[in-house]
């Protein structure tokens, strides 16, 4: 590969990695407090993208002028709000009744929830790919071409992740979340309302996934289908495991790493067909050689 190709693929990789990271933090936060994998999380991302398409594909009486900055901010915020509500509903309706059920049952429920949301999207909006009718100017930086959309997406994702880090490290809610994740009974003895922290965690994770979906539809122009969330969901899950499941900075690192590796392989003339297999190879390698992930501590089961 030529140097300029590598540089170009690096930029593309960081962009898709930022999206993986936005989804991955949701997996990892929920795992941190409940020790479960919320497999419906990729579908939340899909719903975020659908909201973006809905918002831009019609006029909405001029309320949302989607070509304006304010309009796009409003649209992404709406997607986040819708997804947040969805995340809360999923927790309340599907997972909370199973709080004391065996893990396998929760796992199967999560997969069922994922299919349910895919099929709901299929029934409501059909299977044809939907593209947000916006295009972004491309700028040349050295030999690399970057669309303004990509740039905005990258900056916004990084800001979201910085915001999340502040929330987790500096606020009372963030401390409560970490306390529940470390020892939920001790957290209860501090007066931390366990159920509220769980709902809040789902809400935050879903809002970030929703932002990721909306931004992918708006800034990358990726066509939205009912299975739009499946692959990114799986890859974000791999990112979370790669970084160390339960570890938020780990999820961000894992996402960026996976994005970059995929893009580099994808840019290689002979290796490119194997692009989508990378994630799975990485997953197997991590599980075999470093099950705690890159930033995770040695895995400890909670009693």
């Amino acid at each position, binding site marked *: 590969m030529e140097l300029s190709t590598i540089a170009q693929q690096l930029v593309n990789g960081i962009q898709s990695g930022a999206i993986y990271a936005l989804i991955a933090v949701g997996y990892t936060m929920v795992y941190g407090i409940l020790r479960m994998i919320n497999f419906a999380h990729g579908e939340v991302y899909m719903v975020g993208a659908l909201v973006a398409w809905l918002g831009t594909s019609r006029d909405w009486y001029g309320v949302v002028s989607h070509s304006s900055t304010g309009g796009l901010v409003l649209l992404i915020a709406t997607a986040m709000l819708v997804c947040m509500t969805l995340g809360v509903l999923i927790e309340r309706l599907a997972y909370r009744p199973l709080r004391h059920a065996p893990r396998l049952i929760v796992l199967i429920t999560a997969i069922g929830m994922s299919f349910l949301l895919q099929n709901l999207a299929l029934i409501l909006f059909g299977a044809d790919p939907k593209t947000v009718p916006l295009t972004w100017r491309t700028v040349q930086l050295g030999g690399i071409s970057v669309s303004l959309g990509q740039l905005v997406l990258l900056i916004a994702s990084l800001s979201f992740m910085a915001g999340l880090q502040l929330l987790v490290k500096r606020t009372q809610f963030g401390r409560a979340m970490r306390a529940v994740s470390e020892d939920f009974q001790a957290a209860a*003895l*501090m007066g931390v309302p366990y159920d509220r922290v769980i709902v809040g965690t789902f809400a935050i994770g879903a809002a970030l996934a929703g932002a990721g979906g909306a931004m992918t539809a708006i800034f990358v122009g990726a066509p939205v289908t009912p299975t739009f969330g499946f692959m990114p969901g799986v890859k974000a899950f791999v990112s979370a495991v790669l970084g160390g499941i339960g570890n938020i900075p780990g999820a961000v690192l894992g996402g960026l790493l996976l994005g970059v590796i995929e893009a580099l392989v994808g840019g290689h003339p002979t290796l490119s067909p194997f692009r989508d297999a990378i994630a799975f190879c990485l997953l197997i390698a991590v599980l075999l050689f470093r099950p705690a992930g890159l930033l995770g501590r040695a895995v400890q089961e909670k009693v």
Partner: protein
Amino acid sequence: MSETILEVRDLHVAYGAIQALKGVSLTVQRGEITTIIGANGAGKSTLLRAISALVRPTRGVIRYETSDITRLPPHRIVQMGIIHVPEGRRIFAEMSVYENLLLGAYSQWGRDLDERLERVFAIFPRLKERLNQRAGTLSGGEQQMLAIGRALMARPRLLMLDEPSLGLAPFLVREIFQIIRQINQQGVPILLVEQNAHMALEIAHRGYVLETGRMVLTDTAANLLRNPAVREAYLGG
């Protein structure tokens, strides 16, 4: 005239097929230290965990001041001022000492936070020195101090301590018991669970003896110290 602030009546708790408590009753009087002594596995921790709603009783009533708290969730019980320092300390090892103390104040978030911190530092100066250290790196004694300091951040109106002396060197045990007495003298009623029966009865006003899920004896601490059966079973003759 003493006044009952906590009353447990006919409490039954089971873990699956294991009956851990089989009809336990107890009262805690305002201003006093009440201790529960008993062998390993008697059900002491289970009793405290039931009061804190970490386990659900199958039968019985728990009353705190004028309200029935038997069915309340744990965080509501903490809000009412019943603060439980669990067996094994259970500090948040990944967090700093400061963050542990802030979590202690979770149920009583308010303006006087700094004041409460200063009061904790006055009792445990070592915590102030280690404020930004990861709590998991503290020594056992320091962790117990943090666990108690964290509880004090919640402005306890009833403090429950589960084996605070467990695993500590003798001089530290004396220090911890000294501090428990000091906290009590500031007006906080205490429910103290201990295997170290001698030390516990020394500082307590009233004691209960728990044997395999049943209260077998209750009396003033002074009388229990003199009781031949208690001396035989728990005080080494």
